[in-house]
C-alpha cells in the first residue's frame, strides 16, 4: 500500500454527488445550433479556417492552432457554417468571443478518421497529433496537453499523476467516465506515460467513489503487464484534493514551489477525462468535439450527458428538466464555478458541470461583515497562503503588497470564503486584484513598447536629418568645384585658382546661388498671367462689358438691402 501524505488546509463541503450518479451516461440530442468558440484553451486564439456557407463534417478542423501553446478546434457535427463572428461566451463577463456558428444537418457525418498506432511514431509526432486533435486539460484549466508532455531536461520523471479525484461538490462526470470507460482512460494515461516515461503512474481517486476505484483497478489489472507500473490509489475525500498541486502532494509527498513547474520536481498531472480524449484522438482519430457534462442542481433528472462542444447551455439544461424556480445556470461547481450571464453561451471544453441555480438551493449570501482576523481562512487555505492579509491589501487596492503575500499562488478554490465567519467573498477580492495587476502589466508593456518606438523614431529622424545635411553639403561642394574649374578655365589663370581656392569656391557658390535665383525669377515670370497684354479688340470689348456689368451689380447691391429689409 502506498504511503499517502496530507496537504494542509482544505474543507469538507456537502458533496451532493449522489443525485447525478444513479443513471448511466447518455448522449445529448443534437441541438438546433452549435456555437464553437475559437479560444478554448490557454494560449493563442486559433485562426478560423472556414467561412459562412461552408459545409463542414463532424470532426473537421475549423480553427488552426496559433503557436505552440494553443490547440485546434473542430466542428462537433456535420452541417453548415452560418456565421464566423462574435457570440456570447462561456465567461463570467457575459461578453462575446469569436466563434464559429454551425447549423447541424442532422446527418452527423464524420470526416475520414485515421486511427494511428502511436507507438510506431516519434514522440514529437504524437504531440503534434494531440495539438491537432485539440486535446486540452479537461479538468477546467484547459491547458494544451501536448505542451505538458515534455519532461524537464534536468530532472528525471518519477511519477505521472492521473487526476480522478473530482473533489468539487455536485460534479460527477469524471466518476461516471471512470466507471463506464475505465479501459480507455487507462490506455490514454498510457500515451502520456509513453511520452513522459515516468517510473510509476498513480491514479488518484477520492475514496467517496468506490465504484470508480473498482472499475479502474479492474481495468489496470485486465490490461496486464504493459500497465504494470499503474496503481489506482484511493485518496481521502477532502476539498480541494483534486487540485493538481494538492493531489501531487497527497500521492507523492512533493510540494511544488510557487516559481516552479511540477515537471521540475519530476511529476506531471493529467485529468482522467484528458487521458480519455487523448486515447480517442490517437486510437480512433476523433478530435475533442464532445465531453461529459453533469447536469444537476435544481433539475428533475440529474444525470451525466455526453455533450457536443458548442451546445447552448440553456438548451442543454432543458433536457434535464429544470424546475420552475430555476433562475440561472452555474458553470462548474458551487465552489469555483460562476453564474453564466447568458444561457445562449455554449458548452466549451472547460464545462464539466452545469448546475441549475435556484434561490432555495443556493440562498443569497448574508451581508459581508468586517474581517475579525480570526485566521480561519489561513488554516483552510490548501496553498498555505494568508488570505486575510491578501484580502486586506486587495481591498485597499494595494496590489504590490498582495503580490508580496503571493496572490498569484492562489488557485481560487474558495476554501477561505467557505470558512469565513464574516462571510467575506474573499475569492472575488483576489480575482479583482489579479485582473487589476494583469491589466497594469499589459499597460506597462504597452508603455515600454511605445517608448522604444518613440525613441527609435527620434533616432531615425536625427539620422535622416544628418544624412540629408551631409548630402546637401556634398552636392554643394561638388557644384562649387565644378564652377571653380569652369571659372578657372574661363579666366585662363589656373595659378590664381590654385593659390586662392577658398575664395574662388566661395565666389563660385555665390555665382551658383545667383544663377539659381535668376532661374527662379524667370520661372516665376513665366508662370505669371500673360493674358492682360496684347489683347485682340474682341477680347477687350468682352472685358469692358464684364466690367460694366460688375459695376452695375455693385450699384444694385448697394441699393437693394433696404428694400429687402422692408419686404421682410
Amino acid at each position: 500500500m502506498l504511503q499517502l501524505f496530507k496537504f494542509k488546509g482544505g474543507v469538507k463541503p456537502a458533496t451532493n454527488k449522489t443525485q447525478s450518479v444513479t443513471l448511466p451516461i447518455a448522449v445529448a440530442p443534437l441541438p438546433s445550433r452549435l456555437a464553437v468558440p475559437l479560444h478554448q484553451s490557454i494560449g493563442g486564439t486559433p485562426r478560423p479556417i472556414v467561412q459562412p456557407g461552408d459545409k463542414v463534417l463532424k470532426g473537421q478542423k475549423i480553427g488552426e492552432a496559433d503557436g505552440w501553446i494553443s490547440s485546434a478546434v473542430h466542428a462537433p457535427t456535420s452541417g453548415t457554417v452560418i456565421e464566423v463572428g462574435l457570440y456570447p461566451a462561456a465567461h463570467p463577463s457575459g461578453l462575446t468571443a469569436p466563434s464559429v456558428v454551425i447549423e447541424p444537418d442532422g446527418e452527423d457525418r464524420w470526416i475520414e478518421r485515421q486511427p494511428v498506432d502511436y507507438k510506431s511514431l516519434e514522440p514529437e509526432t504524437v504531440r503534434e497529433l494531440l495539438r491537432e486533435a485539440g486535446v486540452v486539460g479537461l479538468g477546467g484549466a484547459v491547458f494544451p496537453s501536448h505542451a505538458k508532455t515534455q519532461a524537464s531536461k534536468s530532472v528525471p520523471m518519477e511519477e505521472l499523476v492521473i487526476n480522478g479525484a473530482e473533489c468539487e461538490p455536485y460534479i460527477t462526470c469524471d466518476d461516471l467516465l471512470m466507471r463506464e470507460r475505465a479501459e480507455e482512460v487507462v490506455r490514454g494515461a498510457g500515451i502520456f506515460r509513453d511520452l513522459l516515461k515516468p517510473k510509476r503512474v498513480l491514479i488518484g481517486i477520492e475514496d467517496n467513489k468506490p465504484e470508480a476505484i473498482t472499475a479502474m483497478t479492474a481495468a489496470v489489472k485486465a490490461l496486464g503487464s504493459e500497465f504494470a507500473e499503474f496503481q489506482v490509489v484511493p485518496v481521502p475525500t477532502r476539498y480541494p484534493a483534486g487540485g493538481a498541486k494538492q493531489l501531487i502532494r497527497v500521492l507523492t509527498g512533493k510540494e511544488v514551489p510557487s516559481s516552479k513547474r511540477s515537471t521540475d520536481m519530476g511529476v506531471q498531472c493529467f485529468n482522467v477525462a484528458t487521458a480519455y480524449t487523448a486515447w480517442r484522438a490517437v486510437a480512433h482519430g476523433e478530435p475533442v468535439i464532445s465531453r461529459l457534462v453533469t447536469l444537476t442542481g435544481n433539475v428533475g433528472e440529474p444525470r451525466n450527458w455526453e455533450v457536443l462542444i458548442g451546445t447552448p447551455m440553456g438548451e442543454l439544461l432543458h433536457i434535464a428538466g429544470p424546475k420552475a424556480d430555476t433562475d440561472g445556470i452555474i458553470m462548474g461547481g458551487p465552489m469555483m464555478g460562476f453564474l453564466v450571464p447568458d444561457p445562449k453561451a455554449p458548452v466549451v471544453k472547460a464545462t464539466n458541470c452545469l448546475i441549475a441555480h435556484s434561490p432555495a438551493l443556493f440562498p443569497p449570501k448574508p451581508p459581508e461583515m468586517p474581517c475579525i482576523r480570526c485566521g480561519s481562512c489561513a488554516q483552510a487555505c490548501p496553498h498555505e497562503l494568508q488570505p486575510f492579509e491578501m484580502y486586506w491589501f486587495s481591498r485597499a487596492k494595494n496590489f504590490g503588497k498582495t503580490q508580496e503575500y503571493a496572490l498569484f499562488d492562489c488557485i481560487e478554490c474558495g476554501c477561505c470564503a467557505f470558512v469565513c465567519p464574516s462571510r467575506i467573498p474573499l475569492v472575488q477580492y483576489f480575482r479583482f486584484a489579479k485582473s487589476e495587476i494583469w491589466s497594469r502589466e499589459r499597460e506597462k508593456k504597452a508603455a515600454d513598447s511605445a517608448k522604444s518606438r518613440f525613441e527609435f523614431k527620434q533616432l531615425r529622424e536625427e539620422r535622416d536629418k544628418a544624412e540629408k545635411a551631409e548630402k546637401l553639403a556634398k552636392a554643394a561642394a561638388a557644384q562649387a568645384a565644378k564652377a571653380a574649374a569652369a571659372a578657372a578655365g574661363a579666366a585662363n589663370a589656373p595659378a590664381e585658382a590654385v593659390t586662392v581656392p577658398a575664395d574662388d569656391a566661395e565666389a563660385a557658390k555665390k555665382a551658383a546661388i545667383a544663377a539659381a535665383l535668376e532661374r527662379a525669377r524667370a520661372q516665376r515670370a513665366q508662370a505669371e498671367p500673360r493674358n492682360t497684354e496684347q489683347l485682340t479688340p474682341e477680347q477687350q470689348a468682352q472685358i469692358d462689358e464684364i466690367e460694366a456689368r460688375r459695376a452695375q451689380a455693385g450699384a444694385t447691391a448697394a441699393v437693394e438691402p433696404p428694400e429687402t429689409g422692408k419686404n421682410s
Partner: protein
Amino acid sequence: MSHYLFILIGAVLVNNVVLVRILGLCPFMGVSKKLETAYGMGAATTFVLTLGTGASWIIDRYLLVPFDLVYLRIIAFIVTIAAFVQLTEMVIQKTSPVLHQTLGIYLPLITTNCAVLGVPLLALGAKYDFVESLLFGAGSSIGFSLALILFAGIRERIEGADVPTYFKGTAIALVTGGLMSLAFMGFAGLDKY
C-alpha cells in the same frame, strides 16, 4: 560597564525621545506614511543625531567651557548639526535620489528637529562623558527610528482599514501615536529590576 547598557536601553525604550519625551514629532507624523521612507528617515536621523551628540560634546568641552561661552551652546550646536544635515543630504542625494525626493523637505528639517538639538542638551544636563554621550545619542536615535518604523508599519495598515470619515488621515494617525505613546510608558517598569 553595565551602566553603558542602561544608558542605551534607557534611551531606546524607557525614555524614548518620540513617545515618552515627545520630541521630534514633526518627522514622526510627516514621513511615516510609508515604511521605506521611514527606514530612510530613521537612518538619516540616526547618523545626524549620533554624530551631532558626539560633536556637540566636544565643542562644549573644548571650546565653549574653556572660553566661558556656554551661553552660545544652542547656536553652536545648531550650526554643527546643520553641517551634518547638509552632509547627510549630499550623501543621500548621491546614493538614493528617490529617497532624497520622498524625504523632501523633512531632510533639511532634521536641522530643526527638536530631538536633534534636545538630545545633546539632555546629554550635557546629565553630565555624561564623551562615550556616554555618544551612547545616549545612538540610543535616542535608535529609539526614534524604532518609533518611526513601528508607526509607519501601523499607518500602512490603517490605509486599508475602514476609518470613519472624520478620523481619516492625520486624526487617526494622532490617535495611533497616542496609543503607542501609552504603550511605551509601560517600559518605565523596566527600572525596577
